[in-house]
């Protein structure tokens, strides 16, 4: 059975003026680690709120564990864990008080499902008497995850858990998610960081309320329709400027120290001649290599395709 089903869901705000979610359909299998990848304002939070029964969709149906998100909201509220986008714990309560409160709220105790949260909770246990407001970003996030897990939910919804968190904490957080997945919990997680997509089993790329692609990260990359090259010179900004004026170039986007380039003549670009033309324009230390795309490349390509339609 699918743990999460969205069937033609549409959601608008301000009496229909703002379209947040536009006819979205997707399915998440039980036990899957599923990622919603997209920038702020793409509609990720609206989807989470519909699935967690906090919002009613305008159109379409949604279900979690076979239960309807509108009619069976009480049953869903018993069986899901939810970590909203903002840090949503009581800053003036201590770590232990927060956890105890949420455990009781869900009609359970910390000890009952301690196995599930042990690995995470042990890390923040030394600070259990500290007020949550005084914790670091990474710690707060671990505490929030503990609170969302304390009642052993069947499906866990994490809305941008790694936003505003530094790279080290982000890495740790994803390791925790992988451990949780092994315990059979279905996890739906959203993130604006494209690099995190690779850590999910399947992903949905979402932009302006529409799903652009749903697949495994590997397949999303494999379906990138053209060849991609990474180009590097002594001055990226100057390189970008001249690539944009270059008739042979279809697209060019900065990726770290390289610029990712696709060519109009995708089948047989004359790389040698092209490289010489760059040199002629005064670029130095030119390096061109064929690369396999990243999720971010795919995302950009899909965004452009959507805009051109």
């Amino acid at each position: 059975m699918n743990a999460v089903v969205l069937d033609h869901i549409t959601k608008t705000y301000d009496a229909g003026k703002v379209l947040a979610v536009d006819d979205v359909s997707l399915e998440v299998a039980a036990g899957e680690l599923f990622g919603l990848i997209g920038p702020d304002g793409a509609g990720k939070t609206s989807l989470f709120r519909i699935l967690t029964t906090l919002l009613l969709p305008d159109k379409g149906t949604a279900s979690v564990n076979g239960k309807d998100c509108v009619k069976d909201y009480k049953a869903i509220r018993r069986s899901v864990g939810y970590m909203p986008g903002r840090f949503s714990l009581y800053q003036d309560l201590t770590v232990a008080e927060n956890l105890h409160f949420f455990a009781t709220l869900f009609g359970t105790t910390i000890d009952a499902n301690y196995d599930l949260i042990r690995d995470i909770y042990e890390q923040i246990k030394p600070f259990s008497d500290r007020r949550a407001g005084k914790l670091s970003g990474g710690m707060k996030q671990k505490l929030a995850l503990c609170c969302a897990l304390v009642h052993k939910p069947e499906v866990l919804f994490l809305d941008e858990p790694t936003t505003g968190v530094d790279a080290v904490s982000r890495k740790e957080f994803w390791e925790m998610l992988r451990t949780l997945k092994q315990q059979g919990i279905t996890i739906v997680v959203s993130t604006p960081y494209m690099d995190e997509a690779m850590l999910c089993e399947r992903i949905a790329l979402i932009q302006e309320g529409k799903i652009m692609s749903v697949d495994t990260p590997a397949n999303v990359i494999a379906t990138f329709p053209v060849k991609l090259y990474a180009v590097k010179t002594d001055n990226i900004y100057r390189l970008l400027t001249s690539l944009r004026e270059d008739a042979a170039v279809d697209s060019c986007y900065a990726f770290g120290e390289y610029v990712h380039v696709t060519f109009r003549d995708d089948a047989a670009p004359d790389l040698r001649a092209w490289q010489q033309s760059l040199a002629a324009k005064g670029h130095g230390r030119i390096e061109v290599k064929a690369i396999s795309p990243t999720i971010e490349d795919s995302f950009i390509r899909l965004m452009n395709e959507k805009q051109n339609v």
Partner: protein
Amino acid sequence: MKQLLVFIRKEFFHVFRDKRTLLIMFGLPVVQIVLFGFALTSEVKNITLTVIDQARDVNATQIINKIKSSSYFIVDESAVNYDEVTTAFKKGTAKCALIFPTGFGNDLQHAGQAQVQILTDGSDPNMAKTVVNYLTAILTAYQQEISPGTQLPYRIIPEQRMLYNEEGNGSLNFIPGVMALVLMLVCTALTSVAVVREKELGTMEILLVSPFKPLLVLLAKAVPYLVLSLANFTLILLLAVFVLDVDVKGSILLLFLVSTLFIIACLSIGLMISNTTNSQQTALLLSMMGMMIPTLIFTGFMFPLENMPWIFQWISYVVPSRWYFLIIKAVMLKGLGFSYIWKETLVLLGMTVVALAVALKNFKIRLS
């Protein structure tokens, strides 16, 4: 049940860990009591004056006509004896009375001096003092009119009596007012802010996505403030008795029961406000504008309601604190029992039920 208890405990943590809330809650009554200790004076217009004319002679009639022609008083001559006057006082339908004893004119013309009695409601000392001053002025003017020159002046000696607050203790009237004000502030403002804070913080989302019944969220929010408000009420009462030497005449139990009802009314209004907004600022502003200011203006403890245009008087009828103020005045200062205040209590109860029903009905089990 255990969930509810844990929730309530959490609310107490919030209150006790937030120094500002504590300061507002327990500092405010002290400040108010001290500030209002300097009693307020106010003008009185068109006040109903009960007149008992046992003399029925020329002089008495002339004085009554003079009073009628002044803009200060509306003369009510329906009462015939002293007992009727005191009953009217207890009901609150009369605030002041002037009594001419039999033989008033005779005494004045033959003995050269005569007595009248002025009765005022001491539980509203500002008004009482003003009434006495006006009446004395009218009597003095009359006296001079009928005295030819400076020889053998006729003297009218007004005998004043304040009912209920014979010493004219100025702090009496505002204590029920402060009670209404502080309870209103604590219950309405703090409760609405406490709920809205969860929304602002984002914790409301988690609470809603838990099996905890949404309505219990409101209950859990209300209970701590009910307890704290009763503590607050006790504090004001103690301050009144030990700092301002107020003599609590009525039943303490009745005071507490009525106050609990008023607190629940205020809590319900606070919850109602919290349903309408997602920002603490708006909640606070609404409580202030919607509740505090009407309490100050329309209860009659700062500005006499009798003076207000009829539209304001009508507005005052829907302000819960007005009714609470009347009840507390009656019970605490006049020592009256439930039989005298049941009507006001019924009004307050009705308001509570309506506010609570609206608050519960509008509570959203989802976001927006």
